[in-house]
């Protein structure tokens, strides 16, 4: 799975789940602001990543994910070995 594959899939999933146009998902855009995530709906982001990639994002790591680039990086670096 290439980084571009991750970006494409994550953007599609986030756009469908949070009903936001993926054109807004620029690398430096803030994930919480762009997706209108509050403390509750942030849980859905965690569940979506877990469901799709079998990656659990602990709260401590979540605090360090600000931009879409941060999110792609986190997924890429935590993908289970195939």
């Amino acid at each position: 799975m290439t980084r571009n594959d991750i970006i494409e899939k994550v953007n599609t999933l986030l756009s469908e789940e949070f009903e936001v146009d993926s054109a807004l998902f620029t690398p430096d855009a803030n994930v919480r602001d762009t997706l209108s995530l509050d403390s509750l709906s942030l849980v859905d982001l965690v569940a979506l990543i877990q469901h799709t990639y079998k990656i659990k994002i602990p709260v401590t790591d979540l605090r360090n994910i600000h931009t879409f680039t941060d999110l792609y990086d986190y997924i890429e670096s935590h993908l289970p070995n195939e």
Partner: protein
Amino acid sequence: MERRVVITGMGIWSCLGTTLNDVSNALYTGKSGIVFSRARKDAGFRSALCASVERPDLKPFVSRNLRQFMPEEAQYAYMATRAALEHARLDQDYIDHHEVGIIYGNDSVAESTMRSLDNFREYKDTSACGSGAIFQSMNSTVTMNLACLFRLKGINLTSSAACASGSQSVGLAYLLIRDGLQDCIVCGGAQEANLYGVAAFDGIQSFSTREDAPEKASRPFDADRDGLVPGGGAATLIVESYEHALKRGAPILAEIVSWGFSGNGDHISTPNVEGPVRSLELCLQHGGVTPQQIGYVNAHATSTRIGDAREAQAIARVFGDYRVPVTSTKSQTGHEMWMAGASELIYSILMMKNGFIAGNINFERPDENTACLYILPETREIGFDMFLSNSFGFGGTNSTLIVRNL
């Protein structure tokens, strides 16, 4: 001083339609909302019969993050409540500046509870349940969602009383308004229509198995009835004091004359005659109404052998020699359960306003227990100005409301 209590708005989302006009026409023409569900059969249901209820699309009205908190029945209830508020000419600005409450009937949220716990079990992680799971899985999900979405600041209460939930919600609202504790309350009942909500009900062999003729399956009081057919949706009534309605220039549809209730204190699923009799008698007594003043009885009758027989005996005992017209609209809708007490008030008010009594479809001949009633098998253009509506539930909870035309 006791205040008069009136109904000023109605909204419904049912297998008979999603507008009052469509539902009224469906009642008049004897339309059945019952279908055969391949999905239920394939899933292992003994009976694959159910009401066909359209799923609403809330995207134009409610944001994604707020929809996450809404299970199926809350979505039905939202649509019904939007329509009822509009019918009652209660806009958001008025609600924002006055104390409007909500009492709504709901007694399960099976599917969304199941799905969130399935995710928890699969991933062994509570976050996998999702952000909306806790709010979706509680019986009070309808009242908590609607109270937030419509910014209701009065009483906020769920009535969980099995198949009398919707009726009890209106009865409780009636008492609070009559006694001056509230001016205006959104009332109703909601019922999930998915297969998971009634799988266990199917398991105790309560449902009709007349799968070769779905529209003939729900046949309350008929000698050949063989069980109920599950339905669903939501029904909302706006209930307020007469003075409050007059003051804000609301359309006044009908008056709630009285509420009667009782418990059987008996078997968990088998009803008796004495409990319902007390509910009916108390309702008449509280309202100072004689049986002869009642022009129509909307029966609880669900198409089960014992339930219909016991209710027939109860009505006959209370009404004596007076042959009051009786029908069960469940012959058309199936059993709308937590929603039924509210939806059947709306069905009856639509009939009262339009000068007809919808026939108890599929009633072909009575048995020895139901022959005591004057059941109308076909729609008749009979005017009436006061009706009585019964709702009974598991555990022996009984609720009776009397409503009159205004």
